[in-house]
């Protein structure tokens, strides 16, 4: 790991000033992904700006009925927060499905949004990777791509976004509050992460010098009919092959509003309004759920080793929506999928 300068800004404005002044600096919070990348020389910041002492740790209701989560709230604290457990259990469940308790104790809310793909070629500096080194090529398209994306890929990159938390956040239509040199702005969660296109080196629409200060959750949290179903190679502490967050509002057996979002299948947490339209006003049954899955996967494209994900995603969507409709969310400790 290369040497770097270490700075501890005294407030958010100071942090913004420091990050804007040095393009090769990085913000560090939990550090659980950044330090890993630094050890592999994938990230080589000349300066680390440690924001962990800034006052961004509150979880609080806003006057408008939203829940505002400070960017430095640790994953465990968010998952175990009484307001999150009560009103946004799909978020609590998604958080607990990811990483390990040690990592969740360190990892921050804002950092979860900023984590990089776990594509092994991105990590391996001996191989070409357009995300790590633009223009060098993609090793995964013709390589070992079992874990890679089936939706929204490009000829430049087929990496996935690794987060579980973000799948729940896009479902809940969270808003990301950021502050930069030209002031603050709010980004809709669906617009925060990018598709790879020709610029896979850019994971998010955050501008240079901007930092995340909070994530805000609208009041609608689907506390009664939800699930987070994560399918992976081992039952815990592994990244998703496919994951599905689902939330339903039911009127008897009829779906008033249905949402679902997928992880492990694209460069960003994947939600599709057209697929959700196939749920609205329809009976909550396997036929409806299958049609919604077909709609979401209509443009899915598999590669040599991950074609199976298309069928897996279809079945996972139907299973997740069934769990949500029955009010029997997937337990993250009892591993049996019901």
């Amino acid at each position: 790991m290369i040497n770097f300068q270490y700075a501890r800004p005294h407030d958010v404005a100071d942090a913004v000033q420091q990050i804007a002044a040095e393009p090769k600096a990085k913000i560090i919070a939990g550090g659980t992904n950044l330090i890993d990348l630094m050890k592999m020389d994938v990230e080589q910041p000349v300066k680390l700006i440690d924001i962990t002492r800034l006052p961004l740790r509150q979880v609080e209701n806003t006057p408008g009925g939203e829940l505002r989560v400070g960017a430095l709230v640790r994953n465990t604290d968010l998952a175990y927060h009484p307001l999150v457990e009560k009103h946004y259990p799909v978020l609590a469940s998604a958080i607990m499905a990811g990483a390990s308790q040690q990592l969740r104790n360190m990892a921050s809310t804002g950092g979860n949004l900023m984590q990089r793909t776990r594509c092994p070629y991105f990590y391996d500096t001996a191989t070409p990777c357009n995300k790590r080194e633009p223009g060098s090529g993609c090793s995964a398209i013709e390589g070992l791509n079992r874990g890679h994306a089936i939706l929204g890929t490009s000829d430049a990159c087929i990496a996935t976004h690794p987060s579980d938390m973000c799948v729940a956040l896009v479902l809940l239509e969270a808003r990301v509050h950021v502050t930069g040199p030209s002031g603050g702005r709010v980004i809709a969660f669906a617009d925060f992460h990018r598709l790879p296109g020709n610029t896979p080196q850019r994971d998010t629409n955050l501008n240079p010098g901007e930092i995340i200060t909070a994530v805000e959750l609208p009041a609608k949290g689907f506390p009664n009919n939800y699930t987070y179903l994560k399918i992976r190679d081992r039952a815990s502490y592994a990244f998703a092959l496919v994951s599905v967050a689902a939330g339903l509002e039911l009127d008897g057996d009829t779906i008033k509003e249905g949402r679902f979002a997928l992880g492990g299948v694209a460069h960003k947490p994947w939600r599709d309004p057209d697929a959700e339209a196939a749920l609205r006003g329809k009976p909550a049954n396997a036929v409806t759920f299958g049609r919604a899955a077909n709609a979401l996967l209509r443009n899915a494209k598999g590669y040599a080793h991950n074609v199976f994900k298309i069928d897996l995603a279809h079945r996972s969507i139907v299973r997740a929506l069934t769990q949500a409709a029955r009010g029997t969310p997937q337990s993250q400790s009892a591993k049996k999928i019901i």
Partner: protein
Amino acid sequence: MTDKQAHPDTQSLGHPTRRDIVVGSALAPVVMGLPLRAEAQSPAGSAAPEMVSVNLTVNGRLHTLMLEPRTTLLDLLREHLDLTGTKKGCDQGQCGACTILIDGRRANSCLTFAVMHDGAHVTTIEGLGHNGALHPLQRAFIEHDAFQCGYCTPGQICSAVGLLAEGRAKTADEIRELMSGNICRCGAYTNIVAAIQQVVGPS
């Protein structure tokens, strides 16, 4: 240069340990000028590290150290304080062997820089017992034969101490899930769960 010379605050243990023998046997390559320590691994042309002062209370004892910012908490414990109970397994947050408690919460010491924890209280496996008595979890691990090679055990036990403090794990399923960040290559999981369950108490 040996660890002892580099870190004068290291206390003599009074009797040779496995660590002393390992360190002693490493002297030969030092004499031949082979790089053993981080300074020698800097890429050519990189700036000299700016040392940073860090205050850290480890197992109740305050240490003031001058460190490179890139020093992980794990390397601080092992290489600067000679607290080698905390193990380096994967060094990338995937195995849990380096689990310690930072201000009472379990964390992977390999994935955090020591400088970020200025003023914190750290507890390692060496700090769990009191007055020569083992921590109840240490006793339970022995009673249940909850290890074979023992390499993951300090991390397992520190992780389990964190789990107890969290108060979220009651059933064997919950213990298994909340201990999933600690990998045991010997496969002692069944006995590890039994040992922890004994201390957690009946569900």
